[in-house]
């Protein structure tokens, strides 16, 4: 097998990996090879650097030390490390949410005049959750109150964060009983750091329970605020056509890749890319126009609302630059490889950082300010236009692969498309599950990771699920992986979906795999699941649902936190690679088994996507049985490859 | 061409043959052994009796060793006398062999007991394969075995028979087992382990007679008590087989005296192994250290010298390593010092059956006893062998973390003593 096909199953990516090899440019896969074998202590989570009596490591093979200098055993060390990962993941998503809330506040006060409130319906709905009266208020006034209320949830010291109460009542009661109802989004994160300081929380179970609470502060807090307030600003997504893969870069256009996570600036960049003045300049530079495309979750955000093309997912960020056709890669926060600078230096590509939180040494920084958002966006697009002249034609190789997809499936949209705009309801979906036409629902999410063949596990898993009549909801880089393979075309149902799912796809006109957005939009999956429970007939708690989650190629701490809030919400969730906890049998047992008795959800670690699917399907079938549902109507289909 | 004769076909003899062949590929080698069996390891006999290995695995060299090394091996033939002038050896088959260089590696025999009844059926020493086969052929008819002697051989015999499911009683005159090689603290742990595993050690007692008609039926002890048994094994240590040297002019004390090239007082005649009284590192005198590794090393150095490669023997240390039911015991050098010039460092944990002792004289280590935690025993061993001042590491000698890394400064500091290339390689980068 050629090297590139070992690294990715995506043709476009393979072509660029091959090009990089020929040009001796190092990619993440090469750096992984250089790094291997990687530290076993790190993989197992059994090293502790929390104080300078250490660093300490526990010998996993039992011959060396079994206690840290402070006396912490392997369970404490593993649990503390895991808690820190959860804190970081929660912090990342929540800080994203905070920035959106802050922008909403500025906009409501007229200080961020480039932004307007597009979705008043959603604004009112959210105001309702915060118990804010909407009568007779102007949208700016209401937006200010909503922004202030959501910012208050970040800094809340006592009580409960508001959105957590959107979960089914039984679930909320359980969280209260276990003492894991988040009090304030930031407070729980801070407490993670306190608890993992030397000599504080030494009980791995107690540590992990706080991890669940912190993660709930993300899923039902920070992330959900990010999603909801972005919808208020930029409108709740509705089904929209788009294109995906490196082929969306165009040889005759000025190519700008917006990469990262927050839509606040990239929304402005979308607008600026259509600025007549800039288009004129572009033509003068010899380009036919300006082509703004997305990468990673920034891509998902602007895809969901504007149909902006998606260049690729996490492991394609380097590959986009390898095309030699990117004038500017504008980045904000999260999942931006430091390597971009090195790869860009092999081409004319300019990397431009925009967040005061995320700078690169030696990289142009144009700081984003809410107050002059459009101006900043325009200046960046202008730099791209200027840079077009420096592009070396002979070094340009753009893979031809680009795939059609339909995105934009917010929780609200699922209401509408299933029930129609005037009788929005989840009833048909619930009925489909109850009758056995659909086996259940799965959330397949998460990153790419060079430890797993790029996109392979996502695709194998999702195909396996849909052929077994499981409706798959996706976000993040996982969604992009499946979109590239054509699973998000409405006609994909005919090829890949089981008979039951196929019937639903045909009747409603949806693909068998639904794109719900970016990784903060995993909160949409929580809301959709809650809506299903509310609709009735499938139990009274999220843990009753014939549903399961998976992150088959995860790499970031955010994924751990997402997994934790899925599990804390009652969802069985499969991860690959395993979380760095295998060094402790007790912590692993808790995470992969005993959590079930506490919160209904728990984890499994499995690297084979077929087995992963089997675990999820078995869980779904078990839940169907517990609900006394009819047998599934159809056997899984066999898809010819 | 030099012709070589080796008397004795065990550790020292075989090791000598190998060493000669490393230097001299052609010189004829004749090996004479009064045993019919060849190339087997005596130390494995208790493993054979205990059922841990089969007869095949008694061999410590390939079956075709003699052939590949081009050695004429005369097994089942006894050397009767040596004529040092004619350089000739008379054999019990009426033949004789001439030699240019001779190695006497006749080993040792079990000490006999001068008590009545020692000739009865069922009384054994355990020294060679014939003894072992005799013991094994009787096993089915034995319910209880009595071992006379609590030394290493006695205890190994006891262990082997216990593994065979026999009732085993060990009669020890001294107040502890293994009194020759370990102190009473180590012995305490070993005795505890033996007791746990069902071996009864009866201390402060000796047998006065072995009872029975033709066959053993019991043992009478010096407190007049009687033990019933069907087998008696005498484990009272060994005595060197030095008879061949008698009257030849070869100097003999406890064993055959050799110099630091393993040569006896007579030129071209060498001795090695359990029969040789050779330089001893810790005492500085001449001593028989009748253990396998010493025999192998002596045989090797004797062989090199016989073949003309001048090689100095640094001397040996008493050293023993064994294992009872998974309890490892290693002792090296002086383990029970009597004079006050010696200093003892001890660590004992009876809960975990762990014991460590290091014996020093003027901060130079001259002995060590390790029970249970025996890893790194050889690091103590090399410090004992090299006689270096251990003051800088004295306070960590008993630590569980003590290992080769801890002696790096010493290895670096004494390049003349740590002169093997492997030592140099470890400190080359600092």
């Amino acid at each position: 097998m050629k090297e590139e096909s070992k690294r990715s199953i995506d043709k476009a990516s393979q072509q660029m990996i091959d090009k990089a090899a020929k040009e001796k440019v190092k990619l993440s896969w090469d750096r992984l090879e250089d790094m291997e074998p990687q530290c076993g202590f790190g993989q197992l989570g059994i090293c502790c650097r929390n104080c300078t009596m250490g660093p300490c490591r526990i010998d996993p093979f039992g011959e060396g030390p079994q206690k840290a200098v402070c006396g912490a055993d392997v369970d404490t060390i593993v649990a503390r490390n895991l808690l820190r990962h959860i804190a970081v993941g929660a912090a990342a998503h929540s800080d994203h949410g905070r920035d959106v809330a802050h922008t909403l506040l500025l906009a409501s006060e007229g200080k961020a005049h480039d932004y307007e409130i597009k979705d008043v319906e959603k604004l009112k709905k959210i105001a309702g959750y915060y118990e804010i009266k909407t009568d007779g208020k102007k949208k700016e006034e209401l937006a200010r109150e909503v922004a202030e209320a959501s910012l208050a949830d970040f800094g809340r010291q006592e009580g409960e964060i508001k959105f957590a109460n959107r979960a089914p009542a039984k679930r909320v009661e359980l969280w209260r009983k276990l003492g894991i109802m988040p009090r304030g989004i930031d407070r729980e994160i801070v407490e993670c750091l306190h608890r993992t300081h030397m000599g504080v929380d030494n009980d791995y179970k107690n540590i992990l329970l706080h991890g669940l609470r912190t993660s709930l502060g993300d899923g039902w807090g920070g992330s959900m605020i990010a999603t909801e307030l972005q919808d208020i600003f930029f409108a709740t997504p509705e089904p929209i056509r788009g294109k995906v893969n490196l082929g969306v870069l165009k040889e005759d256009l000025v190519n700008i890749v917006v990469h990262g996570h927050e839509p606040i600036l990239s929304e402005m960049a979308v607008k600026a890319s259509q600025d007549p003045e800039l288009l004129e300049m572009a033509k003068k530079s010899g380009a036919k126009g300006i082509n703004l495309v997305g990468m990673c979750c920034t891509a998902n955000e602007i895809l969901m609302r504007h149909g902006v093309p998606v260049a690729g997912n996490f492991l394609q960020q380097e590959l986009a630059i390898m095309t030699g056709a990117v004038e500017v890669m504008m980045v904000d926060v999260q999942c931006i490889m430091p390597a971009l600078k090195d790869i860009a230096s092999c081409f004319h590509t300019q990397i431009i950082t925009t967040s005061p939180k995320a700078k690169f040494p030696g990289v142009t920084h144009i700081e984003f300010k809410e107050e002059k958002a459009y101006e900043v966006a325009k200046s960046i697009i202008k730099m791209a236009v200027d840079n077009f002249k420096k592009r070396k034609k002979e070094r340009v190789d753009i893979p031809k692969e680009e795939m059609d997809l339909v995105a934009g499936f917010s929780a609200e949209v699922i209401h509408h498309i299933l029930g129609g705009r005037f009788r929005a309801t989840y009833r048909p979906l619930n009925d489909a599950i109850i009758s056995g036409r659909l086996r259940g629902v799965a959330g397949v999410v998460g990153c790419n990771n060079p430890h797993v063949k790029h996109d392979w596990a996502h695709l194998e898993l999702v195909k396996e699920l849909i052929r077994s009549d499981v409706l798959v909801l996706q976000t993040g880089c996982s969604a992009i992986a499946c979109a590239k393979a054509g699973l998000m075309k409405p006609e994909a149902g005919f090829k890949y979906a089981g008979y039951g799912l196929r019937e639903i796809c045909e009747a409603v006109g949806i693909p068998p795999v639904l794109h719900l957005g970016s990784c903060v939009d995993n909160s949409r999956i929580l809301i959709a699941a809650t809506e299903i429970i509310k609709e009735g007939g499938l139990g009274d708690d999220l843990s009753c649902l014939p549903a399961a989650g998976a992150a088959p190629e995860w790499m970031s701490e955010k994924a751990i936190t997402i997994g934790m809030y899925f599990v804390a919400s009652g969802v069985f969730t499969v991860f690959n690679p395993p979380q760095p906890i295998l060094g402790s049998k007790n912590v692993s047992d808790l995470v992969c088994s005993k959590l079930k008795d506490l919160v209904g959800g728990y984890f499994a670690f499995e690297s084979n996507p077929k087995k992963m699917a089997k675990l999820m399907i078995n869980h779904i079938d078990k839940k169907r049985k517990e609900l006394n549902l009819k047998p599934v109507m159809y056997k899984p289909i066999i898809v010819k490859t | 061409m030099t012709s070589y004769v080796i008397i004795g076909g065990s550790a020292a003899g075989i090791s000598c043959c190998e060493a000669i062949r490393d230097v001299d590929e052609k010189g004829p080698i004749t090996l004479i052994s009064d045993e019919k069996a060849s190339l087997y390891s005596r130390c494995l006999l208790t493993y054979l009796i205990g059922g841990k290995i089969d007869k095949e695995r008694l061999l410590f060299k390939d079956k075709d060793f003699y052939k590949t090394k081009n050695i004429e091996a005369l097994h089942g033939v006894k050397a009767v006398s040596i004529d040092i002038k004619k350089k000739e050896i008379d054999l019990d088959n009426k033949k004789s062999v001439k030699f240019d260089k001779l190695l006497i590696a006749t080993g040792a025999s079990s000490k006999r007991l001068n008590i009545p009844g020692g000739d009865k059926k069922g009384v054994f020493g355990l020294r060679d394969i014939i003894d072992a086969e005799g013991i094994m052929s009787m096993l089915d008819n034995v319910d209880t075995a009595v071992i006379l002697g609590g030394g290493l051989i006695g205890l190994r015999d006891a262990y082997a028979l216990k593994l065979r499911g026999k009732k085993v009683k060990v009669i020890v005159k001294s107040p502890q087992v293994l009194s020759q090689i370990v102190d009473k603290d180590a012995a305490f742990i070993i005795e505890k382990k033996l007791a746990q595993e069902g071996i009864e050690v009866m201390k402060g007692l000796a047998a006065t007679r072995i009872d029975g008609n033709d066959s053993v039926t019991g043992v009478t002890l010096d407190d007049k008590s009687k033990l019933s048994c069907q087998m008696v094994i005498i484990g009272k240590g060994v005595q060197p087989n030095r008879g061949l040297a008698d009257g030849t002019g070869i100097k003999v004390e406890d064993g055959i005296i050799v110099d630091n090239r393993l040569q006896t007082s007579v030129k071209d005649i060498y001795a090695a192994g359990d029969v040789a009284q050779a330089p001893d590192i810790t005492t500085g005198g001449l001593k028989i250290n009748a253990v396998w590794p010493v025999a192998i090393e002596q045989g090797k150095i004797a062989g090199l010298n016989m073949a003309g490669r001048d090689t100095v023997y640094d001397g040996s240390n008493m050293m023993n390593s064994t294992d009872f039911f998974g309890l490892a015991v290693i002792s090296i050098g002086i383990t029970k010092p009597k004079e006050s010039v010696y200093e003892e460092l001890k660590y004992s944990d009876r809960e975990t059956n762990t014991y460590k002792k290091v014996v020093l004289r003027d901060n130079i280590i001259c002995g060590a006893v390790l029970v249970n935690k025996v890893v790194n025993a050889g690091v103590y061993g090399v410090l004992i062998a090299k006689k270096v001042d251990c003051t800088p590491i004295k306070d960590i000698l008993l630590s569980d973390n003590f290992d080769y890394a801890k002696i790096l400064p010493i290895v670096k500091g004494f390049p003349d003593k740590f002169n093997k290339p492997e030592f140099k390689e470890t400190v080359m980068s600092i």
Partner: protein
Amino acid sequence: MKKIFCDITKCVGCKGCEIACAVEHSKAKGLSAALKERPLPKRRVKVSSSDKKILSIHCQHCADAPCILACMSGALSKEKESGKTVHDKDRCVGCWMCIMACPFGAIVRNIEDHIAVKCDLCPDREDFACVRACPTGALFVGTEEEFKKILKKKTHV
């Protein structure tokens, strides 16, 4: 002979070689699966230090190996062509004579199987697990001459 050397000045004590060694000597040859094996796989290398000097202790495959002299069961022997000191686990009876003899403490007990274990220079792979695992290049494979050259180069820089 070609063997493994440790450059003490480059070893940071990460113990990566220890884990890699244990994993290489597991049935599964993978970390998480190896941890589930019983008995746990045994490492044959140990990282230790004295006075801030850190050393990864390995079998030195001594030319004149004291462990071979001490072995009474014929389990330890010298492989002529390669110079490797090899241990035949089927012949080993667990008398620990080799442990008593090895001046480097490079032979350890496998208590469950009651045999000695030592560095076997990774017979199941072409390279060496510990060397491959070493993140700083402190572990080096080659002849003594090659190792000397490397060290010399370093001092010139």
